[in-house]
């Protein structure tokens, strides 16, 4: 087990991402953050706070649950697989014409992001969608790429990347488990 990001480095990465977002996007009024459940949500809130501290602008922040859009739910009808718990999606603003910053903790196969894109598009027509991830662990199965990355961590398929966030787990840390 090795720690690849401690609390201090995580805070710096997120602050850097907030700066990069502001650098790359002119119209700050058009920006909105959407965090993917579960750990994308506190990350999106932290980035929103950073952007507000830097620019003085409040960025709307939403919550997306992608469970109903997963590609492994209604495949083979003969399997009686267990059904994951669904939580609420809360996007209380119009995403039409906005630049949506989609936030997740780990980018891996890309299937979660694929589902998130489908889900977002059911809410309207954003002008653009950009992807923010804390950790990119590689091994993509779909042609998906992040726009902002906290840390690139090459991994083996057998390894597990575990993200801990204070809001959920009581501490900030990213570790790789064998």
């Amino acid at each position, binding site marked *: 087990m090795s720690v690849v990001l401690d609390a201090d480095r995580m805070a710096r990465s997120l602050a850097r991402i907030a700066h990069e977002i502001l650098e790359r996007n002119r119209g700050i009024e058009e920006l909105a953050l959407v965090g993917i459940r579960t750990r994308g949500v506190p990350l999106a809130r932290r980035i929103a706070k950073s952007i507000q501290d830097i620019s003085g602008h409040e960025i709307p922040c939403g919550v997306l649950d992608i469970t*109903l859009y997963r590609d492994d739910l*209604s495949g083979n*009808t003969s399997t*009686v697989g*267990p*059904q*994951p718990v*669904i939580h*609420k999606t809360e996007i209380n603003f119009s995403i039409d014409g906005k630049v949506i910053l989609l936030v997740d903790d780990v980018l891996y196969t890309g299937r979660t992001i694929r589902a998130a894109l489908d889900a977002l598009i*059911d809410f309207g027509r954003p002008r653009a969608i950009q992807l923010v991830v804390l950790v990119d662990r590689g091994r993509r199965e779909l042609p998906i790429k992040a726009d902002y990355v906290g840390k690139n961590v090459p991994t083996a398929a057998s390894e597990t990347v575990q993200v801990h966030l204070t809001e959920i787990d009581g501490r900030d840390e990213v570790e790789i488990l064998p």
Partner: protein
Amino acid sequence: MKKDLLGIADLTPDDIYRVLETADAMREIGQRPIKKVPTLRGKTVVNLFYEPSTRTRTSFEIAEKRLSADTLNVAVAASSVLKGETLADTAMNIEAMSPDMIVLRHASSGACHLLSRICRSRIINAGDGMHEHPTQALLDAFTIKEHKQTIEGRKIAIVGDLLHSRVLRSNVLLLTKLGADVWVSGPPTLVPPGIERLGVHVTTSVDEAVQDADVIMMLRIQQERMQGAFFPSLREYFNVFGMTKERVRLAKPDVIIMHPGPMNRGVEIASDVADGPYSVILEQVANGVAVRMAVLYLLAGGVEDEAAA
């Protein structure tokens, strides 16, 4: 949860809470501009209704469509049932076309259990005779929880035709499982013998049942199931057991009034109560779609203990 949803009797309190929590997430889909998610894409759901129904059938159909299932309604009035085919034969024939789920409403108690034994498809009970109507009880619980936050310890008065009501049975099973204080009231001729064994208080005085209640649930007088005279006249029934403004005043000031529909205005419930400020009757209908989406979703797979990340 098990393969089928045949009745509340088979559910644990955890199962019930799981359905209610899932329904809470499902409700948001109905408020989107695009009211559809791809979850049950490619699944076929057959709605097999042997009894007339507007609310339940429409509600199931909307729930199925919002989850992107392919739905099929078999209107029994225009089917081979009229030519004398048995329920089992009809079910086997539908089953041969390999649907994933069958939603059944039937006038005979236990019809869903029969289908459950002979069908590989998942069976959802949409009302079987005088036995159970589980999705109605679940949507009632959802509505109560929304207004009262908790169900445990709440006084719930259920008034009306207790004998013929599958809604009553499902609700009593569910509410007592979750620890509510359930009171039932109706004319002695319409009280099923032994009902107190289900853990409810029985009284012929509506006023006693309604006193300090958090929830008043009215049941329809089911004239179509009544063979014989159970009470002298509808007018007399209304005078003794009907829910009037005066009776509502006996309950808690924040009481909610529920009715599973269809209502007989002026028989079990006064119009000014049905349309009044305490009435949540139309909310029940709205919540029905979310609850049925939850049931369809949960039955489409099994249930695991915790979500995969």
